[in-house]
């Protein structure tokens, strides 16, 4: 670098706002005059939101039944004990009776809930082959290694769907019966088993392999069902739009839960007389008890719930908003106090500046 003077001012820096760090700017000051209104407004808004949330959450009805079958908790205990220590457990069914004193406002959703079930276990979570599930024929024959040890069956056939998640598919089934009059006959309430999965999952992410000769079964030829399954994947449902990889129960199950306690949607009740909800009366849920949970001291629950714009029943969100809102107001008052207490000095200070 030479410093010798060449042309006068040749090295003179540019005089622009950017190079001289003089960009027009706003210096936001955290003064009380900004913070106070902010806190009060935010507090009021949050309280309003919280109240709204709380009431809409309160308006949601929820009806739950633990059918795990711990001893003395109903007739499912028989199934639970029957299934103990036997794999696969023998088919067993039990029932849950309940009555509604008034209309259970619809739309009503039926969930099952599992506890202490680690769908978020890392190796469990990755034990799936998304390309197989998206219907790629090559992946059907050659599942990815992550699926191991549910990659190939004992006979050496590729497992479809492979992996631990698919293998542990929840296979209890429920049917709901309504008794309109006391001692009247039980009428089966139609359960809508479609539309319970994410639209994108059902329509995009999960695809059946291309049919061979118009038959799904042929498409799956040469594959084995997961070891825990009693039937092949193409027989999950008689409905051709709900079988194979796009069986909605399967799709829902494959969307793994974040926490060891989770609910999954089983069905919606929205058809026929029940579109407005479940009318008053006695009900029976027939439960086909297949899924063993007692081994890992888990629980199975069955939940009827209505939903609102904010999803299911969730008082916590509303309470949290109420709490935050009132805290804002409180802090606002504290700030006001501090502001008044030190106002004189601050004024002096401002004058100085």
């Amino acid at each position, binding site marked *: 670098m030479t*410093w010798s003077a060449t042309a006068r001012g040749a090295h003179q*820096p540019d005089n622009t706002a950017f190079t001289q760090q003089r960009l*027009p700017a706003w210096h936001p000051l955290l003064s009380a005059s900004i913070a106070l209104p902010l806190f009060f407004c935010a507090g009021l808004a949050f309280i309003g939101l919280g109240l709204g949330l709380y009431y809409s959450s309160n308006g949601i009805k929820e009806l739950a039944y633990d059918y795990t079958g711990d001893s003395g908790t109903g007739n499912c205990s028989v199934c639970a004990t029957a299934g103990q220590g036997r794999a696969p457990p023998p088919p067993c069914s039990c029932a849950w009776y309940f009555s509604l004193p008034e209309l259970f406002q619809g739309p009503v959703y039926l969930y099952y809930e599992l506890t202490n079930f680690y769908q978020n276990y*890392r190796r469990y979570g990755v034990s799936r082959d998304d390309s197989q599930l998206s219907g790629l024929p090559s992946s059907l024959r050659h599942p990815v290694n992550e699926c191991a040890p549910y990659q190939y069956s004992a006979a050496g056939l590729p497992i479809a769907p492979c992996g631990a998640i698919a293998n542990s598919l929840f296979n209890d089934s429920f049917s709901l019966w309504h008794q309109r009059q006391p001692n009247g006959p039980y009428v089966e309430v139609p359960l809508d088993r479609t539309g319970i999965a994410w639209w994108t999952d059902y329509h*995009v992410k999960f695809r059946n392999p291309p049919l061979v000769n118009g038959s799904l079964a042929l498409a799956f030829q040469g594959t084995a069902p997961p070891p825990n399954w009693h039937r092949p994947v193409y027989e999950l449902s008689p409905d051709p739009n709900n079988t194979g990889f796009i069986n909605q129960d399967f799709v829902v199950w494959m*969307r793994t839960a*974040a926490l060891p306690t989770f609910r999954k*949607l089983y069905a919606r009740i929205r058809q026929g007389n029940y579109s407005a909800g479940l009318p008053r009366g006695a009900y029976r849920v027939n439960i086909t008890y297949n899924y063993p949970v007692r081994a890992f001291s888990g629980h199975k629950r069955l939940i009827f*719930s209505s939903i609102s714009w904010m999803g299911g029943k969730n008082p916590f969100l509303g309470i949290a908003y109420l709490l935050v809102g009132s805290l804002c107001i409180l802090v606002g008052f*504290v700030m006001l106090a501090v502001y008044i207490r030190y106002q004189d000095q601050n004024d002096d200070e401002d004058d100085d500046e």
Partner: protein
Amino acid sequence: MGDPTGRREAQRRRQNKPGPSEKYELRADGPTSMGSLAYREDLEEEKNSEFTWEVQANNQAYNSQFKEKVFLCWQRKKYKKNVIHTAKYNVFSFLPLNLYEQFRRFSNLYFLLIILLQSIPEISTLPSFTLLVPLICLLTIRAIRDLVDDIGRHKSDKIVNNRPCQILTGKSFLWRKWKNIRVGDLVCLHKDSIVPADLVLLASTEPSSLCYVETADIDGIKEGFPEEVCVQPQEIAHAKALRPGMPILEHPGGGWKVVCEEPNSRMHHFVGCLEWKGKKYPLDIGNILLRGCKVRNTDTCYGLVIYAGFDTKIMKNCGKIHLKRTKIDHLMNRLVILIFVSMVVVSMALAFGFWHKVKEFKAHHYYVSAMHPHSVAVEAFFIFWGYLILLSVLVPMAMFVMAEFIYLGNSVYINWDQHMYYEPQDLPAKARSTSLNDLLGQVEYIFSDKTGTLTQNIMTFKKCCINGVVYAESFPRPRGDPRQGLACASPPPPQENPFLWNKFADGKLLFCNTQLLQAVRANQDWRVREFWRVLAICHTVMVQEMNSECPPNPGDQLVYQAASPDEEALVTAARNFGYVFLARTQDSITLMELGEECVYQVLAMMDFNSIRKRMSVLVRKPEGSIYLYTKGADTVIYERLKKKGETEWATEEALASFATETLRTLCLACKEVEEDVYKEWRQRHQEASILLQNRAQALHELYEEMEQSLQLLGATAIEDRLQDGVLETIKCLKQGNIKVWVLTGDKQETAVNVGFACELLSENMIILEEKEIVRILEVYWENNNLQGGKKKELPLQFKMALVINGEFLDQLLLSLRKEPRALVQNVNVDPLESWQEPGEERVDFLQARRLSLMWRTLGIQLRSSGLIPQHKDSKTLRIAEKQRERAFVELASRCQAVICCRVTPKQKALIVTLVKKYQNVVTLAIGDGANDVNMIKTADIGVGVAGQEGMQAVQNSDYVLAQFCFLRRLLLVHGRWSYMRVCKFLRCFLYKTLASMMVQIWFSFYNGFTAQPLYEGWFLALFNLLYSTLLVLYIGLFEQDVSAERSLELPELYIAGQKDELFNYWVVLQAFAHGTATSLVNFFMTLWISQDSAGPVSLSDYQSFAVVVALSSLLSITVEIILITKYWTILFLLAIFLSLCFYVVMTSLTQSLWLFKHFPKNFPFLYADLNVLSQPHIMLVILLNVSLNTLPVLAFRVIYQALKKPQRKEEVEKVISEEITVEPVPCIRRESRARRSSYAFSHREGYADLITQGTILRRSAGVNSDMLVDHTVPPDEPSGSMKESLWYPRKMSFLGRKRHSHHGKVSSEDMQPPSEVSSSLTMDGQAVCPSSPPSQQSLAIWIFTGEVAIFS
């Protein structure tokens, strides 16, 4: 242009190679004392002393026979070619080498290892791209930067290697390129050409075969590398002085053979011998032309290449730029290690959790039990590694790369700053180092050079007093730009230049006084006449007539070149007042006295030296009478006056008033000498000058005898003009709690004078003197020894200043090692001093009172013995030495001002090191000369003032300024901003990393410690790269807490940086806590909400949960950064907008169908965000998270601010009241008289010898002129005078040697019998200190007096 840059690259390249070159490196942590430094050098001396390097001129066959073993049996030629490759890479080596370099950084290597670990499926917790993508991006960015740098180096290499030069081929010199030069070649150099390799000078066209070179281009690798002039061995010069160049052509090859030492890095040192025609001639460094020097004023010269290419001294010396690192950098590294360690600990804890959990999984959770083929311990071990990978995102990988960019940006701002642009020289400020910006905001000590840094090094003739009448400027110019126009272009009627009558008048002189002018022109008063004659005759200035074709002003024809600017100012003043110094020969001086030319015969020159403090010239006037003209310090002159009358008193008063104005004063006197007296004296003088022993002493005595009963003529006052804005800058820096120490090679008097001028010193300060210092320190040591090392503070309440002398410093810190008693011994008893200045011995009552008062305050029991520890074993000595150093530093740091004068460059560095070591503060050294290089390199920050003393300081500095006053802006604005920005950036970065990534840990508690990542891989990969980067980058580059103007108005703001307030462990802890809190809120609020909720799309599934937490984190962090940013510009809005855009775009991209279809495994989050965010209640969840993270912090800040404001005000009040209580302490005035006699020539002794011997007079008219071709400097060169100041005659080395012997003598006299020691010890507070402390010559002074000596 090319070469220095290339060299710098080479420096960078070699910086990691430890080599012999490290010997001059002064490291902060290394041994600091002078002794150890010297020791290291001695050790170096031992090595490399074998003469195994043989070169025969023009005999390639011979020279290429030497081989050196490279590897096994592969050999190559021992002598390197002159090709230089400073570029690191070529086309093929770029990729591997660059990758290798990058992976030498710990963080990159760490991530590489993590990525490698990831490929093990058992423990691969994160998708491989998560870490790979950012790493590749960062590596690419770095590689591109390196590539751009390297291309520049290639270009400069090419330029350097292709420079033309003349090489002897066959019988003639042919133009070749530098790269063709081989060892043994004969090279012909012309004026202004650059020396291509290290040459032995064989011949030149100059008389005595001198060759003048300018070394400004050599970046002063070492302290005080003096401007080089090579002297050829006399014999050889004589042997072929027939016609230049001829002998070489006659003897191609010539049979010259050089045997010398192997190439080494010692710039000052060379030993070898030249064999020619069977005779051997010794060679030393004086015979060597070093690569990179520029041949000046020498028409042609011939050299024999001995070292080429990388063997040259300059290239060998390139290895030691030491990597300066900032405090924050250290903290950052420690922090990363801390994070890493805590990460390992957390991983272990979580793996331990898994250990417990996995038993349950294996036994009961049948759906996963088949996935545990290994034993519990092995599984836990795997999980540990899995967590290590998972949590590696907590280590801020991008931080270092981004910090580098921020540093770069802030450096560029410095280069861009218009307020630091110096228009007269067209010099903008320049940040040469791009990694020290934040340190600029933490400086606590500034070590400044004096000359050229604080002062302009321009001496202005301000006032004079003739015959007791004071003449000041008649038209006081408005203080301001001295460049504007003529001095007497006065404000009232634009009158003509009063000097027009004098065609030699120098238009640049600013002094004029009409009254005086009249007096001079009237030519009535003999005193006035003699006054100007003294100025015109008694000096060592050289004159050079410019042969410009049509000089605009005849006055411009004369160019004076003086050893010191003082002299130049005086002679120029005389010239303007009609006493024009025209020419000088060995024994005559030609003057133009009021238009009349007179030749004075010089009979004797009694040179200035620091003891004599005067200079005399004995001349025979044209009319035949003999006169002695003397000028010198007033104390010296007054003692030698014949009579003391009214005039003398008036003059003394004038002197006092000059001194209070901090002008440098000088007394002029003369006397007529009788012819017979002179004859007798001359006889003795000749005898004395051929004495072999004690010659100097004898001459001194003779001079002394002659310089008696003088007649006082008057006094002059010269202003050592401070640079513009120095006063304000120092004041401002002091307000910012920055201590300014002046370290100068100059005289004590001059230094003190400047100290007063720039208000570092003030009248109400006690200037501690050596004796007092010793006493205070002794008390301190004693107390420390008695209390078993328990520190006792120095009980000082006064405003004190420390003025300390280099030699005294040496004694203070070194005496223990060598001679335990030397310290006390040398403090007061200086034989030379007492011999010279008997008048100083009188008791000074004021001072005595002052001392006793001080002792009382200190509560000292004066003791006469046992002050110095008597233990001799090395350990105690070392401890004692350390204590000594510590005590000294502590004392010095308590003083309001510290001025160290007459310090060598090494001592400058030593002082800096000491302060660094014992105060643990950030130091900044500023200087402009080669003598400051050491200090600049030692200090944490080195600032070079691009001034007139060459480029060495600049080349070694970290920042280059044109003026001292820019330091204010550099520190208070840029430094403070940079520090604040870097701190804020780091805090934000830590916060954001922790806030976003800690959730992984919390999530572990809910997934059975299975190291399941919570975030999507792509979010992790892009979070640090795109989503959150711009905002922190904005903070690091643009944030301003207060405007530049306000920073300058309130220097107190700077203190925060000194105290590390903005980034320390406490701040880190805060960031850590805040980050943890944010992550906890984000995770657990989402968790609790999701537990209750159920719906068609709830957030209870893993992907939704991940999306919600990720978005909450991102938004929380964004809002937090928005809130702490205090400078919202359009760029900030752009940054926010872009960050969010990046999130939207990249998320929709990575969750798109197309990518999922092709890589379902890598893009599993198909439409997750779209589905989740279309739910209104999920937006509410995110809103809740963000507000919960923001509002409490906001509230806390508002309240804290409101509470802090009044507190701060109270503090300020307290400080003010404290200051008031300090004031009433009786301030003891030091006599201003002490400062008065302080005119000190800043030039060195020995010029008179040069003149009388005629060595440097070859250019004077009539002398040796037939030898010359045309050596006048082209007058059209605007900076000609500045450039010329860069080269000095080689005779310096002769001076140095002479001084050496002298010094030896002095020190032998220093050794006093012990009885005297004890007597000086027993002296109590009533003891007398001479008001001007001993100023002996020191060996090294001549290197670094820091003044410009001009000879040509």
